């Protein structure tokens, strides 16, 4: 069978064909599509976990019980899940366990560009790096076998370009390992990882690494493609594809198992070529490993990061131009001609959607001149003009803890700006890592003011469900977690649930909360336009040019549906979904619904010049 699949879909297919029984993941670009695709292919059980640490521990539990299991996360998710990963390296597994890390090389949708190959080395677990969709499927399958054979979690690393590129995948759907569960095997020397046991397991881990090196010498994951012996490229992952295109005649050592490296294979390759070029995005990982082997060659034998950037994605063109600086390689790099306009073009960054409830929140915070500790999600877009209402954003959950820490520091001096501090955190992010910070702030007698933006989905990463949405990944209904009651149980009595679209009340209540002592939480509840069934029945808003006084108020909250033309505000009908925020603002009642067509719902909100 032949299918055009993304790397993520292919990973899911590999897990399915490899007999995985349990998948647990927390979404994160570029990994989010893997787990739902696993369920679609027919994977027996898949779930959205509360966070990555939880997801990995669930998968480890399934593996301890003797089933094949996996988790998938974005690169920084592995920071959250590092604790169980590093310890599970010592305990080993029972059923096969694969941890998929999707690194965001190019920082398309993340806070950093960390290279998780270091995590494999640090945790001492084997690292697999597929370079296209076909390999994603094959390597994932094989990863379960390696895991069981060497009694180890396996880290399978993709990068954004592998995860989101599509390529043809050929496979035989009949060749599926059926999911099986062998049962828990009691062995306290292995599964109870106390110091006395851990010391013994450390011996095992080092022995395992040695065995994996040997395995890598002959494994199909690693291969040499002999070509011209003047240049030998050592590479892995998507860099292999770019390098193949850039240097089609060179010799290649393509590493699919890129930690630990097979010393014999590396030595054979290095010694048979005149120059070794390391082509790898981000950090000099392969390069440092190979240089550390202390092979008997001059250091001029190697070209690595002295030629290539540590930043961003590579391409065939970049590889050639980077190597053209070394005349001994004889690589010319005529660039193809291109033409670009000198007219300055308007930017088109991602923006909050028309009808997004976050817009109402940030407009309010802007008006209240708050300094906003933001968090990770669609609402981080509140930083951009004209909302300008996010001033810090670090990592998931930090909105609450950072704000609280600043508050403790401020006890010892005046806050000269006189501006209120507010934490803003999404519902999914709150459940992921916000709760513990809230407990801390309540316990340690903070005054932290927190808005939880409950849009009833994990919007940013593609609208996944979570514990407070009432639905599971497998499609079952589940009583939604009650965020307000949870907040109270964490120790914050001052909690209100409000709809931010009711702008007047919302602003009044936020202001009142800022004036009260003690920690307080407002749960700003309004569904994301993608999950709100009411959106479909709503009509676009029109601005009556006769009534429009061109005051510009409706242009101040950055709705992509509102624009300015011929001295009046106007609304792009194909974009507007009738949320009515502009109707609330319009001081001259110019914005309103069209003559309501049959069956169309008119807005419950009336004009009134709220500003």
């Amino acid at each position, binding site marked *: 069978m032949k299918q055009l699949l993304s790397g993520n879909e292919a990973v899911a297919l590999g897990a399915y064909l490899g007999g995985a029984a349990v998948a647990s993941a927390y979404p994160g670009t570029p990994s989010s599509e893997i787990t739902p695709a696993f369920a679609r292919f027919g994977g027996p059980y898949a779930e959205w976990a509360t966070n990555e640490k939880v997801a990995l521990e669930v998968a480890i539990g399934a593996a301890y019980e003797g089933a094949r299991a996996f988790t998938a996360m974005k690169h920084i998710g592995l920071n959250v899940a590092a604790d169980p990963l590093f310890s599970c390296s010592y305990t080993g597994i029972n059923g096969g366990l694969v941890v998929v890390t999707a690194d965001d090389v190019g920082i398309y949708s993340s806070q950093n560009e960390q290279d998780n190959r270091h995590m494999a080395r640090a945790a001492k677990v084997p690292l697999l790096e597929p370079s296209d969709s076909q390999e994603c499927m094959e390597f994932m399958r094989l990863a379960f076998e390696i895991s069981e054979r060497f009694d180890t979690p396996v880290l399978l690393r993709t990068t954004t*370009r592998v995860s989101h590129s599509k390529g043809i995948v050929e496979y035989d759907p009949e060749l599926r390992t059926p999911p099986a569960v062998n049962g828990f095997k009691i062995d306290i020397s292995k599964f109870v990882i106390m110091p006395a046991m851990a010391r013994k397991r450390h011996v095992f881990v080092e022995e395992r690494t040695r065995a994996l090196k040997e395995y890598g010498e002959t494994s199909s994951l690693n291969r040499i493609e002999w070509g011209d012996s003047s240049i030998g490229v050592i590479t892995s992952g998507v860099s292999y594809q770019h390098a193949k295109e850039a240097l089609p005649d060179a010799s290649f050592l393509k590493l699919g198992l890129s930690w630990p490296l097979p010393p014999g294979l590396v030595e054979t390759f290095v010694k048979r070529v005149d120059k070794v070029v390391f082509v790898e995005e981000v950090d000099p990982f392969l390069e440092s490993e190979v240089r550390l082997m202390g092979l008997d060659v001059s250091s001029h034998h190697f070209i690595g990061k002295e030629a290539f950037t540590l930043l961003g994605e590579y391409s065939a063109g970049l590889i050639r131009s980077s190597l053209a600086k070394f005349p001994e390689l004889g690589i010319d790099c005529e660039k193809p001609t*291109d033409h670009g306009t000198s*007219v300055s073009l308007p930017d088109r960054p991602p923006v909050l959607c028309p009808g997004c409830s976050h817009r109402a929140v940030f407009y309010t915070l802007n008006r209240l001149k708050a300094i906003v500790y933001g968090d990770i999600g669609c609402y981080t877009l509140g930083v951009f003009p004209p909302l300008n209402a996010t001033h810090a954003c670090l990592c998931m959950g930090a909105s609450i803890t950072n704000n609280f820490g600043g508050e403790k520091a401020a006890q010892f001096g005046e806050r000269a700006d006189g501006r209120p501090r507010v934490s803003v955190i999404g519902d999914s992010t709150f459940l992921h890592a916000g709760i513990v910070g809230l407990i801390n702030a309540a316990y340690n007698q903070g005054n932290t003011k927190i808005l939880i933006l409950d849009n009833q989905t994990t919007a940013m990463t593609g609208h996944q469900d979570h514990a407070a949405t009432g639905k599971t990944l497998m499609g079952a209904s589940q009583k939604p977690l009650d965020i307000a009651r949870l907040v109270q149980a964490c120790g914050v009595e001052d909690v209100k649930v409000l709809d931010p679209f009711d702008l007047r009340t919302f602003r009044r209540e936020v202001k009142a909360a800022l004036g009260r002592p003690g920690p307080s939480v407002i749960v700003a509840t309004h569904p994301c336009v993608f999950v709100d069934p009411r959106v479909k029945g709503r009509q676009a808003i029109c601005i009556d040019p006769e009534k429009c006084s061109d005051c510009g108020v409706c242009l101040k909250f950055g709705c992509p549906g509102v624009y300015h033309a011929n001295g009046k505000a106007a609304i792009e009908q194909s974009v507007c979904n009738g949320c009515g925020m502009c109707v609330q603002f319009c001081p001259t009642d110019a914005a309103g619904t069209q003559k309501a067509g049959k069956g169309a719902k008119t807005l419950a909100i009336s004009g009134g010049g709220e500003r």
Partner: protein
Amino acid sequence: MSATGNGARTGTTNFFVAGVGGQGALLASDIIAEAGMEADLDVKKSEIHGMAQRAGSVFSHVRWGRNKVDAPLFSDGEADFLLSFEIVEALRWQPVLKKGGIAIVNTQKIYPVAVAIGNQSYPEDGVLEAEFAAGGQKLISLNADDIARELGNVRVANSVIVGVLSRFLDVSPSVWRDVLARRVPARALDVNLEAFYRGRELSADV
């Protein structure tokens, strides 16, 4: 022009598809990629989805070849075809198109927020034509949204654009039809096919 034979080093045909989130540009690139696969070519397609991309710039690389296609990306000046669903996006991505390449551009204007609030301005009429002429490239511009609206469904604009493109490729109409049937909802298939053929006929005149 044939489906293969971009010449150069790689012997692949490169397509770059650009648009604004929500316009269906990524679906169009999927359809092109799948048509290549159906025509027994090797295919790679690459795009980035992340962030809330409604109303943001979106783009996709598609590559076809009779031989194995290695890299999922190509560089500036290497696209044989640039498909853009919006004028500013066509200008933004013009550098990917090679000299002598073909640009198929939907002349729909979508104002970015920065333009709507008056911080930046939208390029004047005529810039599109002038720039592609200066680049030595063939420009086929049409308002696919209008055509789609005429057909009763503004969402089929992407099928109009794919139809225009299809005329330049060695892939039989039946392959395109099969791929469309697979990729669009069943009840919208007829209108998509109509849109596809409208586009295909339009490019017969150029």
